[in-house]
């Protein structure tokens, strides 16, 4: 790990975050938007683990553990909300789910 510069990991993490932002903005399927959010969470996790490893400090990896817990809770509740919306409107297209829009 002396050979791989820390910048490479961080640039990969930034690239995956940017791809996640693009996905959230261009996709119409609510479930795929959710998956793009998971991608962004993962890129943040990669940056945390990189710094943790290069500092020789376990705190960053404990943080990643908590991020994974929150991601699991979030996806369970979010998918339940999507199922509830689908039951009422028979679609998961975010252009057609606009009852809060004014």
């Amino acid at each position, binding site marked *: 790990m002396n050979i791989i510069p820390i910048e490479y990991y961080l640039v990969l993490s930034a690239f995956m*975050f940017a791809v996640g932002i693009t996905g959230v903005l261009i996709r119409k399927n609510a479930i795929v938007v959710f998956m793009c959010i998971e991608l962004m969470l993962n890129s943040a996790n990669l940056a945390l683990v990189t710094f943790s490893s290069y500092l020789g400090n376990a705190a960053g990896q404990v943080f990643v553990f*908590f991020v994974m817990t929150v991601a699991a809770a979030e996806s*369970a509740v979010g*998918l*339940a909300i999507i199922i509830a919306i689908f039951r009422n409107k028979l679609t998961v297209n975010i252009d057609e789910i606009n009852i809060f829009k004014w």
Partner: protein
Amino acid sequence: MSFEFILFIFFSLIAAVSAVIMITRPNPVMSAIFLIINFFSIAGLYLILHAQFISIVQIIVYAGAIMVLFLFVLMLLNAKSEKDILSGKNKIKIFAVVIAGLVFAQIAYLIFFSSPGKALSPDVAASIKAGTVEQIGKELYTNYLLPFEAAGFLLLASTIGALVLAKKHFD
């Protein structure tokens, strides 16, 4: 070029390419499968970084539990493919790519401008020690005991919340 560097190039290329393929597939099931490939390659990167525990948890929790949940809901709702991801409504798409490119340029500029590699002197022995189950377990049960308990409570609350939301009638 060492073996470690070749592995890094291999896993990071898979991660980057599968992320791009994931957001451009019209079929949501294909998106989910490419996201799983992305999660596996990130688990490989964690192993190169000596984070053994996080690597295994990444495979079990993300690639296993969370993505199975996503695929289950996708199959259940039978979502249609999006025909016009790469065509149609071009203003929004150009705007999205410009925004994402700006964010990426800012972060990359900061990374190379601040050059964190100089400030951090990687100590291989310390980073191997930091990634073990023993070390992370010790941290979780001493310094981070209260957040750990709160995470357990959060999981309980989300389980109950998902059950209540998925029920047909509220009574």
